């Protein structure tokens, strides 16, 4: 392979035809309310960990649907389970249950823990 001093740039586009949503699909079977998120951001705004770690329940749910598992796992590891997001969610999503459930699922959506 020849080195031209430049390369094809990786695309940030999400292809919804091929994105793997297995983990999300399993999550919403176990926590159906997770689907009702309206991306209002209350959870992230109130999150104790967010300002220092980038944790956001909203982004976790979105990332799962867009195939961004690495980002999701990194965010999940920062959660302190304080419960503030559950208190503010206008859709009444049990975010604590959501996070704990998600931590038990591998990337294929299998319950492993």
């Amino acid at each position, binding site marked *: 392979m020849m080195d031209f001093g430049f390369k094809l740039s990786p695309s940030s*586009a999400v*292809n*919804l035809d091929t994105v793997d949503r297995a983990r999300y699909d399993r999550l919403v079977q176990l926590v159906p309310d997770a689907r009702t998120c309206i991306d209002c951001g209350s959870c992230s705004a109130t999150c104790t960990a967010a300002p220092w770690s980038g944790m956001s329940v*909203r982004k976790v749910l*979105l*990332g799962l649907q*867009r195939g961004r598992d690495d980002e999701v796992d990194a965010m999940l590891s920062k959660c302190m389970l304080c419960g503030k997001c559950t208190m503010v969610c206008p859709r009444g999503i049990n975010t604590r249950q959501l996070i704990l459930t998600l931590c038990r699922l591998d990337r294929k959506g299998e319950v492993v823990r």
Partner: protein
Amino acid sequence: MVNRTPVIAVIGAGIAGLEAARQLSGLGYEPVLIEKAPAVGGHVAEWNRLFPDMAPAADLLQSLEAGTSGIRTHVDTEIASLGRLKDGYSLILSNGETLLCDAVLFATGFHLFDASRKEEYGYGIYDRVITNRDLEQWFNTRHDPRVGKPKAVGFVHCVGSRDVKAGNKQCSKVCCITAIKEAIEIKEEFPDAEVYCFYMDLRLFGKKYEDFYIRAQRDLGIHFIRGRVSEVGEAIDGRVVVKAEDTLSGKPVKVTLDLLVLMAGIVCNPDAQHYARELGVAVDEDGFLKSRDNLGAVIESSRPGVFFAGACTGAKTVPETLAEARSAALAIHQYFNKRR
């Protein structure tokens, strides 16, 4: 005021015109319905089921038509010209008849935006791109080869609405809920299909609308993507490739669909503008007819004896239109009472 029964020309026999005529007749007046289409019913006649209770549109029309059965109705009739008289108005109809009346009610409704004008979406060019009206007709007739048995369906909100370049900066109000209603109906029809709604904002203001949204999300797993579809192309198998940005994650998204439904918006009816100008009635900057007052007198025009009902003044839901029709009938009643 003459002693004979006052005559009111009701322009348009959609739901606004039918309901107003029924009320006017009940109040002892003589409404005359003038409809340019071959049949009454307007846009609602082209729809299948209506939110929020999924009642058949045909049932509503049936009851409205039953209520107007004795009323003089000209279908397939255009208005050649309108003129002001000392105490009323004269209308020359395309059937040659001259109608002298004491008041005029605009129930001229709206036009559905011509979706082919958003060229980048390819309506009329790509085989799998249809409009909200086409889909309602498919629900009615089950005949449209474009629909088929889709495995992936997309809905594009705000087609020709909130779009300065299309000349319509206003919100069409009902498309968000219509899209969700149709998405639910499609998902119920084709449970294995992935259904995507591409929206700019979701404006679910009406009774039970939010329930539709939650049901679409929670129970049916319909995907809501906040981002306006930017362009549509055709893949080699005839399916359509849709590009948008998922603005919530800040990433471009691409998806291949078997069917794309464009939610064509509500725009002003150019005929209504034309009639309004002939009568010296004000037209608003959005092209809809201008109410005397947007709070207390939505159904009154700038001219005595000329009234409005329904979507001629802007996008309306069915119950809003019916309420305005009744309100307009009452306002006309008060107008004659004052003149008596």
